[in-house]
């Protein structure tokens, strides 16, 4: 299966099989041979080339969370359909975390440039400014200043700028 790491790196990962405690995993062209031993209280010891790692994992929505000691990893399945969808949906400005909309710098109908600040969201006493990733027209403002929003909530909808009709089929990468 195709997974994307939190770093953005995409991996083709497959559990080839296991035999007792022995596990074989394919990563792209490479194979990893490991031994896995459960640990009381959760998690496991994964031994690779004689080196032992204390590992824990869990699922959150479609993601797989893994911890190796204090270090955390997140793997997200790469879904072809979703990617394409996201290409089209780059015209939505969404909340990167739950928080409060502090400020909206644009109004419907505004033409915005790449990098132009659109909204400020506050979470954990910290302000994050959300900016346009490409030139666009503000199609719809979906929230009001002061409103609490959840992670992923759509704040602003954008439509392509007047002069970019030719780029519609090649939406900007996110």
């Amino acid at each position, binding site marked *: 299966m195709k997974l994307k790491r939190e770093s953005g790196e995409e991996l083709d990962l497959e559990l080839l099989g296991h035999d007792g405690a022995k596990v074989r995993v394919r990563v792209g062209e490479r194979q990893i041979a490991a031994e896995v031993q459960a640990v009381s209280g959760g998690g496991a010891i994964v031994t690779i080339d004689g080196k032992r790692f204390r590992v824990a994992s*869990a699922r959150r929505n479609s993601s797989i969370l893994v911890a190796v000691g204090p270090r955390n990893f997140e793997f997200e399945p790469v879904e072809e359909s979703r990617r394409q969808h996201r290409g089209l949906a780059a015209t939505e400005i969404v909340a990167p975390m739950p928080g409060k909309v502090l400020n909206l710098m644009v109004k419907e109908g505004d033409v915005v440039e790449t990098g132009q600040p659109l909204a400020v969201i506050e979470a954990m006493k910290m302000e994050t400014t959300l900016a346009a990733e490409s030139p666009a027209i503000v199609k719809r403002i979906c929230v009001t200043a002061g409103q609490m929003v959840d992670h992923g909530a759509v704040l602003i909808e954008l439509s392509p700028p007047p002069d970019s009709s030719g780029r519609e089929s090649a939406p900007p990468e996110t």
Partner: protein
Amino acid sequence: MKNQTIRKLLVANRGEIALRIFRTAKTLGVKTVAIYSEPDAASLHVAAADEARLVGPAEAAKSYLNIAAIVAAARETGADAIHPGYGFLSERPEFARAVAEAGIVFVGPRADVMAALGDKVSARKIAVAAGLPVVPGIESAEIKAVRSFTEEHGYPLLVKAAAGGGGRGMRVVADDKSLEAALEGASREARAAFGDGRVFIEKYLARPRHVEIQILGDEHGGLIALGERDCSIQRRHQKIIEESPAPGLAEATRARMIGAALSLARAAGYTNAGTAEFMVEGDKFYFLEINARLQVEHPVTELRYGVDLVAAQLTVANGGHVSELPAPRGAAIECRIYAEDAEHDFRPAIGTLLHLNVPSGPGVRFDSHLAPGVVVGAWYDGMLGKLICYGEDREQARSRMVAALDEFTLLGVTNNAAFLRAIVASDAYCKADLSTHFIEEHFKGWRGGSESDDAALVAAAMAAVGTPGAAASLAPASMSDGRVTPDRSPWSELASFELWKSSR
């Protein structure tokens, strides 16, 4: 507690510090009252108290900052004392005043002392009058005055908000060109953040350490210092690693700093626990500010001195006397676990805690309200807990911290544990090459090592077997064959490594 008058203590705070204060209160036979906001109903600090009162919704302004509701909760429960913890209302003179006016003991300095020290300009004046060295600076942001200051002291200089804290309203000015814009920007930011646009000017120190002195005063003129803490390791002007003693600090400098802190506390009429913060370069030190409350990092002092600072605070609040302490012993280090992404500008993280391994053993203390299921939201400070290690010397404390962080796992909320581990294990930290630029100098753009990548890939591949889109319920063999499997772990048996419920 001698002369006990405090019988019931309300803690106007949440999380680890509320829990920590309740633990001490319990050892003293003092009854406890928790306050909580709606999302904190299941929090361990609420569970730890003898009584608990809901004070408002998630938003701090309506709950943990809601003076009227908190004082009302104290009245209703018959609490005769309030401990503010740190953060929230802990340094708000109007809170100390409201508590005192309600006839309730405020566990901290008097409101007027807090007010005088809370304003940076006023605190600086008191410090100068008490003979403390301060960073050369002027209290005016008037452009001519600033220019004549720079003629004497040169650039760079620092613009700071008088009412500020946490780095907001703070600008480093490198040269005359950017001076005017910086003054205006800082003032604007300060006004927006604190409702007070006053700024002041200081010489910018190139490579200072942050060292602070813990003090404790009673109402009878008794005043002691409990040594120092080095808190140089900061990101975004916020401490993440603290230790005591401050490595490499000359004994004479330490002694002079302690003397300065005591002079200032005496001049200000300071009572209860407080901390005088200094910038140190070589054998020179400069007063920064007084934090008129218990510090986050107080446990490193507790471990070195073998004292309970919260118990001492309650003794003093009860009208008791401070007593001289035995000499400190060994060394202690604290690492703050934050919900943040150290690989991406320390941006705050949120989530639900799914799995937790807490280290323990000789010399290891973990102060935290964490437990599986805890939801780390965006409402409050992202500090999840404090790992504190004691050692016979710095090296033992440090190596225990490395080992403890290796045992630490927190799954479900992105956090800085691996980053802290990298710092504490680094050569720069071993050598105690400390300055407030430590992270900038040694860990800029840090990324976690790749040594554990393959182990993570194996785990991910195993976890992925119950592919997304498969049934929500992936009951493993162990669940249906008569064994009790109390923990939802993907590892309880190799053959049944999928134990979670996907949450769709």
